[in-house]
């Protein structure tokens, strides 16, 4: 089990978090349906670091972006997602 450093709550047990999808599988708003389907249903699935969308489901319930390595399981960055981070 890992600790994930939630930007809102601090370090918490991984069991409080759920993995949702990868950043490279989010279709841009306004994409045409075929293109949106293609993006939603494909993953680079690298054997190394990738950006992933997680959620602190059993905590503050905020969405997060983790940069996580799939070979070593190390978490290199945790970023909050929300209006304040877009500014």
């Amino acid at each position, binding site marked *: *089990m890992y600790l994930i450093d939630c930007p809102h709550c601090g370090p918490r047990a*991984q*069991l409080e978090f*759920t*993995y*949702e*999808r*990868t950043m490279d599988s989010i279709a841009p708003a306004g994409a045409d349906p*075929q293109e949106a*389907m*293609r993006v*939603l*249903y*494909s*993953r*680079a*699935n*690298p*054997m190394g670091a*990738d950006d*992933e969308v997680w959620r602190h489901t059993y905590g503050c319930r905020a969405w997060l972006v983790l940069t996580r390595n*799939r*070979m*070593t*399981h190390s978490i290199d960055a945790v970023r909050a997602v929300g209006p304040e981070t877009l500014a």
Partner: protein
Amino acid sequence: MNRYSVFGLMRGALGGQKHWQPAWRDPEPRASYDVVIIGGGGHGLATAYYLAKVHGVRNVAVLEKSWIGGGNTGRNTTLVRSNYRLAPLHNLFDFGLKMWEHLSDELNYNVMFSPRGAMFLGHSDADMTMLAQRGDALRCDGIDAELLTRDEVAKVEPLIDMSRTARFPIEGALMQPRGGTARHDAVAWGYARAADVLGVDIIQKCEVTGFVRDGADGSGAVVGVETTRGRIGAGRVGICVAGHSGQVAGLAGLKLPIESQTLQAVVTEGVKPMVNSSVMSQSLHCYVSQSDKGGIVMGGDPDNWPSYARRGQPTVIETAIAQTIAIMPALSRLRMLRTWSGVTDMSFDGAPIIGPTPVRNLFINGGWCYGGFKATPASGWTYAHTLATGAAHPLNAPFALDRFVRGATVDETGVGPMPNHR
């Protein structure tokens, strides 16, 4: 090649068993082949065997980056069954189950197929309704399925906690009597030996590092592969590396509808027979069976996030064991021998992918989620058809790579397009 038989064994006994020979050759790769199969697991070797046997395509190589059967073929929990709810799935898997029944004879290699029954437990009225619906779907297509009462479940598995105070009460079960287990390594070795006899080159320690493509800009048809043992030309190339499909397909610039996740299993010390069938609970997500050596084999959910580490989270396996022990309390006294994990191709609807890719002459067989072992003969048979003819076999037509963008998913559990919610 010596045909294996009891008489051969007896003759060998007189001569000090000195007659044994390697079960397959260790050839140097040729300059080119009609078909190159990437991945020497059960599926790849079965594909090569049926290409040679059924389609007469004998100029075939199976390229394996380490040793054959060393990936997911050697890491699964050996369960064989065909009791899927949806027709495309149960038709494919039952085609395979019928092949399992004669596989040892077919290959002249004992794969130790043991049809001891595959039993899905029901813990509530709602569970029993779902199991009855599944059983009806199976019987409509001529596949065996029997709805068992509580008493019948207790007769099959006397060690299940049938009390009304049980943590997970038992209301009944859906039994597939023809289901069971097989010896996983023997499946790879049996197919390898039989394919080798027909002229297939099995080339181990040969990792594919790239594809050779036609066209001025290198984006045309695949005409060969680059490997750690040099360039090998190919008429057609079949990817068959479930667990790492994304990696190999990525060499051709493809992005697949697949995420790689870790699936764990655990085995205990060997004990006398105590689990008679393969017991599964799909409401809880745990399954248990006893190997022929006596170990109790248990498994559960994948770790629900992407990983290639072949190293699972203890919390996930703990959950599966806790559920199994709640169902069969006697198991709590056993000592764990080992746990292990494998990397699975989790597809977006829980169903496999077999068929052509957008790249000419390049085909793919993958996305088996955590259920590939039982499909080995059917997967090989249908993929061989596709590689020989370039067209889909009726049984693998529903599992085309482009079904996701067409909206034609085969979603057994009905949970939608999330590989981590299977």
